């Protein structure tokens, strides 16, 4: 038996989490270093997956399969396609930056504060989330996926509720109240989604007799498993609802601004750049493969919701006064693009959507982490409390601007490639929707540049006049992300090469072909 690479990649951070939690309280720094080391080792394993994966090979590779709950037909089945590989790589890549950026976020508070901040716990929880996210990307057994899809809520809940920003304008008490509100809201939304999905998972089992994604998809494709139209639709909706909460799709999005606003910046990145991606990923992997007909049936409604998310999220971002809430609404707009790309059901749309997941992860991490550094210096999340920062901290301002430019999908940076692919992929099938979505690019410029203008330009505000520029640790966090944004903007081929074959298979699952151009101007 070959080395179980996929299992190892998920188990390593899990073990790391336990080990980090076990470090004695006095040796705080050792716990941090351990967590960082584990995340780097996990990255090494993820890179191994990337290298071992053959884009032109079979659909699912590096597969592992073991009986688990035999009576119930639950198997421990793992396997990755190009889409999963890309997202595992993203997750493993972002983790060291998240840990490094949050280096001091869980340090004990000043003496006199009643709050207890378990440093080890913070980093253990982050690694725990990483483990569960990775296995969610790997699982090809529906039940196995479901378990970790739900289980990751627990560490996330504690990360949001237990660790907030240091300073708060209304004092510690109010901050704590708001934090637990956000954490519980996050939990309830996602639990409701999960519960509905559970019903659908069980329903699927009743219909199909097992949980294996590959088996069911195959049986559906060759006609041996027939599903009544209504059954398929209900099951689809059950799955989709859970993923739409997680993604999040309008109108199920309101938990995200609360959650991102109250958590520390690295945790906010963890939510939007990593955890939420499981939702959009699962739409591609489970909704389309298991319920191809229902997916097509629901497409018009989903496209409209995605379009609303794009425009609505962007307009709300314009209206925010809180930096982190602004980024949260921008993310809602971006998730709209991802879902639009998935359900446009074209090669460009779905490859674009997958690429979008990766690029959004990196660009949001860059923007949000720099925002976090900014907020930690001034102790306020309010845009109005800043002004003229570029004069006192030019490097911080410069990196913030680059993060912002990535968010508005400036050509030359990675998000442009994915956003344009999604737009073009949508436009080829639904021109009107494609055109309306294009308005999103104007609004993105508006919220990003307004944010930059209000915080970074103008006369230097008294309170920021002594603000230090980025420190070495912070620069180590931001610089590689920026390099990556530029690299993938100029040369995205390594990612598209991995993703394209997987998208091709997914499209053939739903029996969709790309629309042909009117004129064959390019010789085949």
């Amino acid at each position: 038996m070959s080395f179980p690479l996929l299992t190892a990649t998920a188990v390593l951070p899990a073990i790391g989490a336990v080990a980090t939690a076990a470090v004695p309280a006095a040796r705080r720094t050792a716990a941090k270093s351990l967590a960082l080391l584990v995340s780097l080792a996990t990255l090494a394993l993820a890179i191994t997956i990337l290298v071992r994966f053959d884009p032109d090979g079979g659909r699912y590779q590096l597969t592992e399969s073991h009986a688990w709950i035999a009576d119930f037909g639950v198997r421990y089945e793992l396997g990755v396609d190009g889409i999963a590989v890309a997202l595992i790589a993203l997750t493993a890549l972002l983790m060291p930056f998240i840990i490094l950026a949050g280096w001091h976020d869980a340090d004990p508070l000043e003496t006199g504060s009643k709050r207890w901040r378990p440093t080890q716990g913070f980093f253990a929880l982050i690694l725990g989330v990483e483990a569960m996210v990775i296995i969610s990307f790997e699982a090809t057994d529906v039940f196995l996926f479901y378990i970790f899809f739900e289980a990751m809520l627990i560490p996330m809940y504690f990360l949001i509720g237990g660790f907030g920003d240091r300073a708060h304008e209304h004092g510690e008490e109010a901050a704590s109240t708001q934090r637990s509100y956000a954490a519980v809201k996050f939990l309830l939304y996602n639990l409701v989604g999960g519960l509905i999905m559970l019903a659908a998972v069980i329903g699927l089992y009743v219909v199909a007799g097992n949980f294996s994604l590959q088996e069911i998809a195959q049986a559906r494709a060759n006609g041996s498993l027939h599903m009544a139209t209504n059954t398929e639709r209900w099951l689809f909706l059950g799955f989709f609802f859970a993923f739409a909460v997680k993604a999040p799709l309008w109108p199920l999005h309101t938990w995200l601004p609360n959650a991102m606003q109250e958590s520390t910046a690295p945790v906010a990145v963890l939510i939007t750049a990593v955890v939420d991606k499981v939702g959009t990923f699962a739409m591609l992997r489970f909704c389309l493969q298991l319920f191809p007909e229902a997916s097509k049936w629901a497409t018009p409604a989903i496209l409209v919701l995605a379009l609303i998310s794009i425009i609505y999220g962007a307009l709300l971002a314009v209206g925010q006064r809180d930096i982190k809430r602004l980024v949260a609404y921008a993310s809602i707009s971006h998730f709209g693009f991802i879902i639009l790309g998935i359900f446009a059901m074209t090669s460009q749309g779905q490859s674009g959507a997958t690429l979008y997941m990766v690029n959004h992860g990196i660009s949001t991490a860059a923007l949000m982490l720099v925002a976090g550094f900014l907020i930690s210096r001034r102790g306020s999340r309010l845009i109005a409390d800043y002004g003229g920062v570029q004069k006192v901290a030019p490097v911080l301002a410069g990196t913030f601007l680059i993060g912002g430019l990535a968010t508005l999908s400036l050509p030359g940076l990675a998000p442009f490639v994915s956003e344009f692919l999604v737009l073009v992929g949508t436009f080829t099938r639904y021109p009107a929707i494609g055109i309306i979505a294009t308005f999103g690019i104007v609004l993105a410029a508006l919220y990003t540049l307004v944010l930059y203008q209000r915080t970074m330009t103008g006369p230097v505000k008294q309170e920021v006049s002594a603000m230090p520029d980025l420190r070495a640790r912070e620069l180590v966090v931001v610089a590689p992300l920026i390099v990556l944004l530029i690299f993938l903007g100029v040369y995205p081929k390594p990612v598209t090469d991995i993703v394209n074959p997987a998208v091709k298979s997914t499209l053939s699952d739903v029996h969709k072909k790309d629309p042909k151009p009117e004129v064959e101007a390019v010789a085949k």
Partner: protein
Amino acid sequence: MENLIALLVAAPLLGAAVLLCGGRRLDAVGQWIGTVLAGASFVIGVVLFADMLGKDAEHRILIQHLWTWIPVESFQADVTFRLDQLSMTFVLLITGVGSLIHLYSVGYMEHDERRRRFFGYLNLFLAAMLLLVLADNYLLLYVGWEGVGLASYLLIGFWQHKPSAATAAKKAFLVNRVGDMGLSIAIMLMFTTFGTFAFGPVFSHVGETGEGKLTAIGLMLLLAACGKSAQVPLQSWLGDAMEGPTPVSALIHAATMVTAGVYLIVRSGAIFNAAPDAQLAVTVVGAVTLLFGAIVGCAKDDIKKALAGSTMSQIGYMVLAAGLGPIGYVFAIMHLVTHGFFKAGLFLGAGSVMHGMNDEVDMRKYGGLRKYMPVTFITFGLGYLAIIGFPGLSGFFSKDKIIEAAFAKGGTEGWILGGAALLGAAITAFYMTRVMLMTFFGEERWRNQPTRSPEAASAEPAAEHHGEHAEPHPHESPKVMTIPMIVLAVGSVFGGAFFSIGDRFLHWLEPITGHSEGNSPLSAATVTGGTMVCLLIGVGIAYAMYGRRPVPSVAPRGSLLTRAARRDLLQDDFNHVVLVRGGEHLTRSLVYVDHTLVDGVVNGTAASVGGLSGRMRKLQNGFARSYAVSMFGGAAILVAATLLMRAV
């Protein structure tokens, strides 16, 4: 040879990277790194040009394929450069004028503490602009297109601590983004129509699709061009863009970037030729803008804003010419090049005047400066003669051809467009004479008055060294600034004649753009005569108003039109009321809706489904946590129950 093309872009790109990432240790030499790399790009351009001249017209296209950029099934975007006569013309203009302006900036920005970054941004601009004109497909062009937008944003807002500069920068980017939407949609339309957006395949298959599609593509490209080239209705950002340092206004907002829209239209000539409705729209935009800009230019007292109005108007001429189709393409580009010389020269002259006048920009506080700044006066004067179309100078040749071509369009349209172009020539002569007289002639209105009130403290570097209250001591600028002005003045004088003798420029560009002679209802001599008459009328009126009478140092109230023109013909007021205020209301109500309605309804539904109405408010007190636990418990029970059922 084609391997050199990438170096054109790489040299300034390297400069930008080094200067922006290099840190403070490069502060002392940054300006020279930037200037040398801009010059290097120019030298490479000249080498390629010499090589191109050595070949016959059919073999002048060089293609350099670098790498496959975005490959997704049939969507194939490559990083491929195309150097042909059209892009060659732009390469020489961009790198030539660009290098001169780098040199000028060495003097102009001497005392700015962020000078290194300024040169980094200038280099970034050159790289993006070269990418724009060298790209072999529309998506790569888009990268350059937004790249120059970014550079423009950074440079307009270079003095970011001034709120007005930061606002102007943001406005420019946003208005341009509206245009970019047009470019995006045009590319998407091309992809669905032709399956590609590479120049060659698209242009050669234009005939195989319907006119409706081509008209749509043409109109979207026009929208893009309106944004970048400050054409009505997307012109409002250009006046504000004068917040940037003056060399930036000269390079980006006069000579090069703002002409990108003209490039786009001429480059897409094959599409427009097959879409007469789109062409008509282009000519209308051009004609309206050439009058709009000229009228605005008449009313401005700020020397840079008067020149900005003029830029808008001159680009209007180019767009008009580009809309005329093969009759006009060559002349659109020819005017673009000569305009690049004289308008860059005029802006550098304006910068030189400001440099010597404590950064005063109000022409009502100038006067009689010819004695104190002879070089500036002469070079500016030559640029002035060139732009109004004084016989024998550059503008005379290029503008005359456009007016002729407009009449040659034929029919009523021809008369209207030609008439507008003639009228524009008269107004141009008026406002430029006004600038000339107010600045260099008449009383010395700057005597005994402080040039700047403290609250309007300028950020232009000279001010920081002279103190803002002092009476200015006009003086000539250093050589590093005057030499570029002299070079540009030479181009302004001789460029037009050089291009026109033996129809050199026409023969050079014709293989790319095609050319046709229209049948003008008026003879060439009549048009030239008419233009001369208009010129004399314009100059005459300006002389009567500003030469014969003293210029009041506070602007008189003026007529309704003057007042409207001072406010850019009320376009900003319209934008403010409709877009800004309307948008604010919209976002504010949406924030409310999201918080109360969407959040409320979703929470409420969840609560009532769970039978939890009223208890949701107690979320924080641990109740919800137990609810969560019970949900997990419920899930477990469900699973167990199913297991059991199966077992039974």
